[in-house]
């Protein structure tokens, strides 16, 4: 399936901005099962400088600055992405991977093999998922038992978050601490992903935060999925001897042909779609729109 996707973020500044420095993490990845066919980043006004680099986690970030006075900033990322989940390793085809228990996984993760080292960093606390509380550990403990397979447990965790937490865009913003989300059991996709990651890490498993999109238009006869009017987020669990497996707790499903991966990191902090420092005297207003449809 080929998707055409466009993600526009615009800011209107009350009293104008004399100049700004920005970082955008908007370029979809090319990974197994996902190929970026075309990508274009349009910025208005035209940046004075712009450059691309690969960040610590392997994401492509674009840095740009605008050095002229402007009252509006508009950033549009347009991509064409081909998704073919049949190319991805399927956990349901791997009986061994489905059987790996928590105890076994923790043992495997002690190795300093390069690929294990790479994932081990996702066990540690991160900027937004820090000081994991006994409440989170307890919530995780309901699903994760030493002798239970971690895939099964993670699947159950995803289901429980889907059931226990209420999707409420009014309740949280990007700075809401996970502990508040845990307490109120409310939030958006980003919060649910981070709660799940906190749970994985609380039992010693690597959890990764995935930032991306989900298909806007539902297939005929199916319901529209949540998270379609903005960027989406979900989590990934590393299963030793198999690899990373994605889970979408907001929609209670394993991402397959409708999820487009842009970037990953330890949590949202590592991969905000657009951030920046502006020099101005007034307030600003933000507007985001995302549109994804199958390319005809």
């Amino acid at each position, binding site marked *: 399936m080929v998707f055409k996707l466009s993600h526009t973020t615009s800011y209107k500044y009350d009293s104008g901005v004399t100049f700004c*420095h*920005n970082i955008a993490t908007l370029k979809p990845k090319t990974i197994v099962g996902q190929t970026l066919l075309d990508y274009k980043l349009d910025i208005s006004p035209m940046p004075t400088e712009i450059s691309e680099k690969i960040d610590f986690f392997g994401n492509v970030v674009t840095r740009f600055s605008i050095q002229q006075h402007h009252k509006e900033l508009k950033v549009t990322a347009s991509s064409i992405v081909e998704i073919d989940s049949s190319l991805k390793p399927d956990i349901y085809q791997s009986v061994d991977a489905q059987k790996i228990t928590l105890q076994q996984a923790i043992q495997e993760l002690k190795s*300093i093999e390069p690929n294990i080292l790479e994932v081990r960093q996702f066990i540690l606390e991160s900027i*937004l998922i820090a000081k*994991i509380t006994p409440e989170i550990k307890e919530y995780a403990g309901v699903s994760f038992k030493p002798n239970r397979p971690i895939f099964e447990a993670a699947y159950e965790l995803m289901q429980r978050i889907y059931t226990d937490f209420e999707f409420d865009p009014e309740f949280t913003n990007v700075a809401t601490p996970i502990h508040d989300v845990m307490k109120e059991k409310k939030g958006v996709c980003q919060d649910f992903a981070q709660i799940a990651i906190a749970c994985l890490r609380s039992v010693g498993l690597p959890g990764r935060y995935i930032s991306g999109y989900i298909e806007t238009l539902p297939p005929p006869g199916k319901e529209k999925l949540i998270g379609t009017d903005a960027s989406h987020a979900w989590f990934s669990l590393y299963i030793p001897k198999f690899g990373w497996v994605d889970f979408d707790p907001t929609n209670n499903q394993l991402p397959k042909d409708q999820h487009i991966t842009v970037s990953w990191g330890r949590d949202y902090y590592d991969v905000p779609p657009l951030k920046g*420092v*502006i*020099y101005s005297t007034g307030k600003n207003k933000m507007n985001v729109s995302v549109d994804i449809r199958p390319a005809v």
Partner: protein
Amino acid sequence: MTTHSNILFQNYFSDFKNYDEVLKSNMSINPNWETLLNNLTEMGHDALISKQKEIDWLMDENGVTYNVYNDPKGLHRPWNLNIVPFVIHQKEWETVEKGIKQRAEILNLVLKDIYGKRELIKKGIIPQEVIFAHRGFLRQCDQIQYKTAKNLLIYSSDLARGPDGRMWVVNDRTQAPSGMGYALENRYSMSKALPGIFKDINVKQPSGFFYDFNQMLIDSAPQNKENPNIVILTPGPHNETYFEHSYLSSFLGYPLVTGDDLVVRSGKVWMKSLKELKQVDVILRRVDDVFMDPLELREDSYLGVAGLLDVIRRQNVSIINPIGSGILENSGLIPFMNNICKYFLKENLILPQIASWWCGQEKERNYVLDNLSNLVVKRIDRSNRESIFFCEFLDNKALESLKKEIISSPYGFVAQEKISFSTAPDFVDGTLEPRKVMCRTFAIAKHDSYSIMPGGLVRVAAERENLFVSNQRGGVSKDFWVSTDEKQTNIQNYAWDNSFKIRISDINDLPSNTAQNLFWSGRYLGRALVTARFLRTVLNRMSSEQYNEGITGSENLKFLLQSLTHITYTFPGFVGKGSDALLKNPLKEILSLMLDQDRMGSFAQTMSSFNNSYYSLRNLWSKDMWRVFDGIQKLWLKFEDDDNYSISALTKILDRIITRIIAFMSLIEESILVQQGLLLYFIGLQTEQAMMNVSKCRSLLVFNHNEQLQYDILESLLTSHESLNIYRYSYRSYLNVENVIQLILLQSDYPKSLTYQLRRIQKDVERLPHSKATGNITECETLIAEANLKIQQLNIKSLLQLNNDGSLRQNLDNCLSELSDLLHDLSLSISDTYFNHSHQQTQLVNQNFPL
């Protein structure tokens, strides 16, 4: 020498428990200290007390301070230097020096590796979590390449003598180590106050080290420029070691800047100078890692420069030390240091470390949990005392909660053996007392090795049995001597090598923040002086009325009091609602105008604004300036504490402060060069004085009065203007309005006349830089030219003309009001043209994550 006969050593032993620098275990004297102790003994008890006082005084006089955070009385706390130095012999020092060089080199290689290939982790020499779980590991700095010979350019370590008699490493400081400036100032003060104490001891001097320091800064410039633009970045006057930042700035001759003096554009860092943006090549920073770039690091930081990291990646600027070097301030590395050393250098560590167990490893963690109460536990990435747990002092509950914390994030903790370090004699209340000491040493990258400061900064525990040695609480320091058998020359003055000084050569290059502070210093100082003089005139009038209760007298006083409200702009005061009561009993309002710091326009408020802008300029101060400045502050503080607020007491304090303000003003003029920014100070000062002059004349000369009252008012006006004598000399006549207007406003060659002041402002404003943005003629020039034209066209006849009912001089008031507006616009225009900091840095998305 026998210690028993020495009065200085009375009671030295009674509390003697630990290893001591001077006393060996058999109670004999360490020969390295013998000459020093002889010198001290020879000076005698009384001389030592008086010398200690002199040192305290000298530190105070020279403005050596150490700010203590969150302590209202702590700001600008004097730095304490104990009269008894710490001595180490060259022979032992050679080993220490080798050890510091080795450790600096290892840490340099670690820094390069963990932001590069990470082979230490891949080869299992250090566990990944020691680095990745440390909050100082900045992933944003990964794979940055540097052109400098070393990645770690400055290294500082805290050493203390362990039970085996060797110097041990206690802490590594790698982000922005402090203390060099204090160490240098300590040495100067000792040489100045106590030349006798050096008798027969050859102490190694740090001049060569600072030469290397400067050379390192120059060599760090990415483009190998011959004359690189080097700046010192400070968090600002509230930082604890601000004294040192400004000290190094004036000592090395590089501008002291704050984050908002710098800006990133077109892939380079620029300093906002008075004229234009000037490219910066090297930043010696005293700002911690995460505050350096609000774009990629801590988003709530106003201490750094947005976009800086990208300039570093492009190798267009060098930061010393590189951002990210805080990862080396990591007690989690200690257990692995010897293996790291073997891996890189194929040798063992020279300097011993405290036995440490990193809790991220199972075996070690179990040991720590089983033996917790005998250990000292630290977080790997925090070295402040709140994050150090001396477990022997914890109760069971605290121990249990610490255990839980360790179990829940074991990677973040290290436990260390508790060690008793040595004590050294400290001169306290007339005798010597053993106190714990910590020696901070400094290393600077030099070619393929490091240059080590001979000695360093010794800090002393605040109390006898205290385990903590920290400056945060405002501790005591010592001069650190490396004694040698070779003859040394003592440091005599501050100029270490003039040929290396790269001075700011031009007013154009003045950092615009500095310019702004100079301008406001001038304005506040001008306002303070005029206000003080006017207050004094009013008080004198009040006091003479107590003897002479004439009717005209109290009319005169009423006018003076009302003008006081006008010129200080402290309405309603003696003018508006409720003024009748105040006029009957004016002392209370006058006290408020003098003392109320929170009242806009009060003398106290003006002085405190002046202190703030002036303190930000301390790298430009001369010692004399500090002395007088400090004198004013002390006088004022003492006065505030007094409760004698009689008219005569108030007059007396004003007299004394006015004299000092004037002394201070003339010191500024002779201590700061015009191209260093004195021009801005002059413009501020003259503008303020002209404004106050106009305001005084409007409130005292516009209304028409009967002859006697008019006389009294004119007399007071001239007195407050310090112009009565000049008037008598120039006019030799009875006071009249015409002559007073001539003298105060129109005289073109009298420096206190408005005409003269305006012309002077015009001349100075014309010398300010012109750039593309300002054009050939700046708005400031247009405004001041207009004011000058206006005053030249004034006609005395027209100014004197009364309105129809004969009550006031409307023309005079109109002219003065126009001039007042022009001056006000001028001040705004100067701010807009030259100091534009009005555009605040903000985050596009406000998320404020703790980093």
